[in-house]
């Protein structure tokens, strides 16, 4: 049996920030990471940037991105379902996080090719999230933090009204004077996802780590911790249907929808593909596809659309006729041909301008395509398969501004939470690119400082 000052549960960005902050005060810290070493880092290993407020150029960030603009951007995507105090805190603290991250080994790079629109708001990690996670693990090791891989926590002992120990799946009891819960959401538990969302969820793909099964979240909720966030919702985007069930990450995204015609299993269209530019729409397409039979959809383009979007990682099917594409995709050739014919007949003349709303809309089609509507008439034709891909779940723990967890009878005196596991406290719906890492870094650091102050 061992006793630590601070027990950090989880091994992603939030956990590492907390562990480093606590260890820097001299506290004796242990990280319990359920994944093996080569899979360490949860969803954080899949990330590429974090969103950072700044007055004037900062490191790789250009211009100014102030609190008001940042907060407005957040309100826009969450449609107001935001905790204003926690959100503003995260935004304000993000500015001091960037130099802190650099001091702890994170290296930034200019915004990646194809993402120029983010060079003012989002600082990109050189090598991506896995390089960030590697840097933090090295830093934590140097600070003397004990790191345990393959250490899934199954139970957090709160029986005395405060944290006493974490119990691993193999029964090992890790005692500590304070705990930081940073074990992410529950999206990798498909049973839970199915119970929350409905049977369709069994067909969802999980974009990130298979280790975020919400075991700790469930366990502390069962012990009366207060929850926030819609338990039935998850952030769900349309990704390539051939992606692996777990861990497909960034490369499985598919950006062709605005320049395509999208049909379901029966060869019928179901939504306006050209409603808005893709960065503003990709997050709703997960849900749209989830509502279609078998949770699958197919995007069809012709030769004209090639090169208009980021190359997908899986090559599309390709044929010289619409029927040929239908056959390769396993669709009925007749219905697809008819859908395409109706669509083509509804297209009208006008100027096509990719990337901006060009108003080139169909005429008398239901549902319409309101931008970029050009007939599919130039072979070869290409077919892509779409499935819903889950990024994270919204249900989380309710925390204070100091990241302290709300128990059944008031605040738990020695339990803090950071990252995805409490992000529901801030984001009620929607998502702002790069905000997940901001929440994890800001509240991870706060949680680590608070836990260290408590034991110190």
């Amino acid at each position, binding site marked *: 049996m061992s006793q630590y000052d601070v027990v950090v549960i989880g091994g992603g960005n939030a956990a590492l920030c907390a562990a480093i902050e606590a260890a820097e005060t001299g506290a004796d810290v242990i990280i319990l990471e359920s994944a093996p070493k*080569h899979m360490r880092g949860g969803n954080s*290993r*899949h990330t*590429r940037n974090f969103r950072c407020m700044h007055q004037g150029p900062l490191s790789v960030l250009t211009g100014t991105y102030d609190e008001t603009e940042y907060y407005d951007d957040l309100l826009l995507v969450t449609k107001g379902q935001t905790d204003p105090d926690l959100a503003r805190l995260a935004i304000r603290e993000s500015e001091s996080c960037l130099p802190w991250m650099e001091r702890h080994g994170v*290296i930034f*790079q*200019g915004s*990646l*090719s*194809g993402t120029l629109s983010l060079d003012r708001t989002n600082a990109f*990690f*050189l*090598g*991506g*999230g*896995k*390089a960030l996670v*590697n840097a933090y*693990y*090295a830093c934590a090791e140097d600070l003397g933090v004990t790191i345990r891989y393959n250490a899934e926590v199954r139970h957090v002992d709160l029986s005395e009204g405060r944290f006493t120990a974490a119990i691993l799946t193999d029964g090992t009891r890790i005692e500590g004077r304070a705990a930081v819960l940073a074990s992410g959401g529950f999206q990798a538990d498909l049973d839970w996802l199915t119970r929350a969302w409905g049977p369709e969820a069994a067909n969802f793909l999980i974009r990130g780590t298979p280790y975020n099964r919400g075991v700790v979240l469930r366990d502390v909720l069962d012990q009366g911790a207060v929850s926030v966030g819609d338990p039935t919702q998850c952030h769900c985007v349309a990704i390539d249907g051939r992606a*692996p069930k777990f*861990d497909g*990450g*960034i*490369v499985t*995204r598919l950006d062709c929808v605005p320049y395509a015609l999208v049909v379901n299993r029966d060869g019928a269209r179901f939504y306006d593909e050209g409603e808005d530019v893709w960065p503003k729409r990709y997050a709703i397409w997960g849900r749209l596809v989830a509502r279609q039979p078998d949770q699958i959809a197919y995007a069809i383009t012709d030769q004209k659309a090639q090169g208009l979007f*980021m*190359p*997908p*990682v899986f090559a599309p099917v390709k044929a010289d006729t619409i029927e040929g594409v239908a056959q390769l995709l396993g669709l009925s050739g007749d219905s697809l041909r008819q859908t395409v014919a109706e669509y083509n007949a509804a297209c009208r003349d006008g100027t096509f301008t990719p990337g901006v709303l060009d108003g080139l809309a169909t005429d008398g089609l239901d549902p319409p395509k309101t931008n970029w509507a050009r007939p599919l008439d130039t072979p070869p034709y290409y077919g892509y398969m779409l499935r819903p891909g889950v990024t994270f779940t919204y249900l989380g723990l309710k925390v204070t501004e100091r990241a302290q967890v709300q128990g059944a009878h008031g605040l738990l005196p020695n339990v803090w939470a950071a990252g995805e596991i409490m992000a529901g406290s801030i984001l009620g719906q929607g998502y702002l690119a790069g905000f997940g890492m901001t929440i994890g870094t800001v509240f991870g650091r706060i949680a680590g400082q608070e836990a260290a102050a408590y034991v110190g």
Partner: protein
Amino acid sequence: MLDNSLSDEATRQFQICNSCRYCEGYCDVFPQLFSLPEMSAAQATHLANLCHNCRGCYYACQYAPPHEFDLNLPAVLAELRQDTWERHALPQALARVFHAHGVAVAAALIAGFALLFFAMAALRPEAGEGFYAYLSHNAMVLIFAPAFVLPLLGLALSLRSYWREIGGGWVTWADLKRMGGSVARMKNLSGGAGQGCNFEQGARYSNARRHAHQATLWGFLMCFAATSVATLMHYGLGWEAPYPFWSPPKLLGVPGGILLCLGTGALAWLKLRADRDLGAARVWGGEMAFVVLLFTVSATGLALYAATGTGAVPALLAIHLGAVLAFFVLTPYTKMVHGFYRVAALLKRG
């Protein structure tokens, strides 16, 4: 024959990178890769020769094995580079033997020693000063001129065929400047931000390999310059060896030899610590033997200088010249070619 399975595998991995782009800032490979409209075997070969095997993109990759995408760019690019060097070598068979087998390099070294001992025994001059007391200047030229010129000629032909394969055009002053700057700073081992590469410490960055490589490169160039200057002094000024310490050949050669010794020693040490599966694993032995060969050249050179005036000179001279001979002759067939191909890759505009 171009090994299609290797370029196909590199192309498969490149396609995943192209959809990801997280490693863009590590080196020159990624920006060039992302700007290509279409990948071809020739482009893959070029990018492979541009890769410096810093391994940053392996340790940063969320798709590294055991992920089913099985990304290991440093390894596949190293294999592809190796294939390029062997394919363009004249004759290929020699390259295949010496690149892969340390034993073959060792055998060549021993043959070099033997030849020099034999030459010194058989052709011992009547008179002569310094080293020329043991082997006449003419005999040295007779042995070393062809051993130097012929391999370089072969290498030039190989490079020409490589340059054609990758579609290299005319080289401009700007290309030369870019290449020179990149080599002088070993930019592609800097990790993009000066933090270094991932070699002997796994996921941690370190500049050890970059520094060891620079010591080796500069040490080698200084030794080479020492020999060139001496040749010019011999033929141009009629100033013959032995040279005193305060002379250009010695002032370049002694520090150069020390740098080369330290650099190659460090490279060998680092190589023992690094993960072999992130390079061309099949030629590990040959690569190591090449580093040891360079170390032998520099160490015996320094020993020879230190032994000036003692009875050890004839034996050390034979050993040193034997090592130099083996090194020259093997140049087109060992890791030594990487420098030439790398320069070519850096010269090509992306």
